[in-house]
C-alpha cells in the first residue's frame, strides 16, 4: 500500500486537530456506538492517518459510519476532536471522487445540501423521494413513511420563504469560492 507522509499534515491543517497527540488508549473506540459495524475502529483510523495510509482511510466504511455523536470527542484524554477529523476525511473523499464504501450516506448528505441550497429549509417528503430515486431502495420504510404522513408528520408541500431560499442560495454560491 502506498504511503503518503503528508497526509497527516493535510488532515491536521484542515481539521485543526493535532492527531499526533494520540497515544492509542482506544477510549474513542470503546465508547463508539457504531464501532461494531465499522471496518476500522476510530483509533485505527487515527493511527492510519499518522502512518500516511491515505487510501485505506478514504476508502474505509468507518468515515461514512461515524454518526457525529461526539462521544469520542468528549472522552479523548488528549482532546482530539475526532468528529472534525472524520468530517475532513469525508469532504476529502468527496473532493477526490473516491467511490464510497457506503453509498447511501454521501448521497443523503449531498441531497440534504441541495435541498437547503434551493429551498432554505428541509423538505422531508421531497428528500425521501429523491433519496429513493438515487439509491434504488424504493421499498425501504414505506410503512413508516405512510404512518408519518397520516399523522401529519410529513408535509406534502415544502414550507419555506422566498427570502430564506435566496439567502441560502447566496451562502452556497459564495462558499464555493472560499477555500
Amino acid at each position, binding site marked *: 500500500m502506498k504511503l503518503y507522509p503528508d497526509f497527516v499534515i493535510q488532515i491536521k491543517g484542515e481539521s*485543526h486537530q493535532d492527531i499526533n497527540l494520540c497515544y492509542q488508549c482506544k477510549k474513542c473506540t470503546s465508547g463508539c*456506538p*457504531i464501532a461494531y*459495524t465499522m471496518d476500522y475502529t476510530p483509533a485505527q483510523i487515527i493511527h492510519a492517518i499518522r502512518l500516511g495510509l491515505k487510501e485505506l482511510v478514504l476508502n474505509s466504511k468507518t468515515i461514512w*459510519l461515524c*454518526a*457525529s*455523536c*461526539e*462521544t469520542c*470527542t*468528549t472522552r479523548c484524554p488528549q482532546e482530539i*476532536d475526532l468528529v472534525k477529523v*472524520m*468530517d475532513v476525511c*469525508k*469532504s476529502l473523499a*468527496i473532493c477526490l471522487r473516491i467511490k464510497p464504501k*457506503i453509498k*447511501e*450516506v*454521501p*448521497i*443523503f*448528505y*449531498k441531497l*440534504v*445540501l441541495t435541498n*437547503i441550497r434551493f429551498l*432554505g*429549509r*428541509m423538505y*422531508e417528503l421531497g*428528500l*425521501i423521494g429523491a*433519496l429513493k430515486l438515487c439509491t434504488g431502495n424504493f421499498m*425501504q*420504510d414505506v410503512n*413508516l413513511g405512510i*404512518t*408519518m404522513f397520516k*399523522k*401529519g*408528520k*410529513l*408535509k406534502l408541500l415544502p*414550507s419555506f*420563504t422566498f*427570502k*430564506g*431560499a435566496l*439567502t*441560502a442560495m*447566496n*451562502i*452556497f454560491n*459564495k*462558499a464555493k*469560492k*472560499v477555500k
Partner: protein
Amino acid sequence: MKEYAYYPGCSLHSTGREYDVSLKSVCKLLDIEFREIKDWICCGSTPAHNISKIVSIALSVKNIELVKKMGAKEVVTPCVACFSRFKAAIYDLQNEEGLKDKLKKIMPYSDDEIKVLHPLEIFSQDEILTKINNIKKKDLSGLKVVCYYGCLLTRPPKVTRFDECEYPQTMDKILGSVGIVTLDWSYKTDCCGASFSLTIPEIVIKLSADILNEARLVGAEAIAVACPLCHINLDGRQADIKKAYHRDYEIPILYFTQLVGLSLGILSDKLLLDKHFVDTTRLLSVNKV
C-alpha cells in the same frame, strides 16, 4: 412576561410538530413568549458539517444574525441538532484560526454575543420551577419515567456547556418538580443512530432497541425526550425492533414538554399525544392522568 427569539428549525414544523405545539402551550401558561425568527433557514444539521465546514458555519451564523436583527439577546432552539450547530458555530468562530476571515467573505456578521438556549435550560430555572409548582393541576407521581438526553445536548461539553456531559440531571429536575419519578439508568446520553434512520436503518433499529431495553429493565413506563430526531427513532422504530429482535416494548416516548403540560392540566389532545406511534392512552389511563 419573558420574551425569547424562537428558532423552530425544520423538524418542529414537520416530524416534531407535537414538540412545537406542546412547548408553546406550556410556555403560554408560564408567561413565556416566543417570537419566531422571520425568514430563518435550516442550520444544515449533520450533513452540512460532514461535507462543508464553512457552509455549516455560515448557515448557523446567518440565523444568529437574524436574531440580532430582531433586537433579541437570547434564542431558543428546541431541536437538539440546531442547538448543537448554533453552539458549535459560535465556539469555532471564537477558537479556530482564520475562520472569521473565511466567513466574512461569505457574509457580514458582528461580534455581539447571543445566548443560545435549549428549552430545558429555561424550564430548569428556579423561578420557572416555582411557577410550575404553583400552577400545577395534576399529580403525576404515579408515573415512572427515564429521561433520555441523546448525544448533542451535552456533547462536546466545552461547546454546549449544558449540564454534566455523561450523566445530566436537568430534565430529571424538571419532571421531578411535577412529581414524576425519574429513574436512574445508564443510557441517558447514548446515541440513537440519528439520521442513519434514512440511510442505514439497521443501525438505528439496533441502537434504539438497546435504549428501549435498558429503559424496560429499570422499570420505566415511558421515556421522556427533548429532541425530535431521538423521538422519531425511539417511537417510530418500535415496530421494526419487534420484527428484527422479536421484542415488543410498546414503551410510549413523550416529549418532556408534554409531561409538564399534562401536569399543568393541558388536555392530551391539545398536546398532540395522539400523534405518536406508540399508544399513550393506556399509560395515561393506568396512571389516572
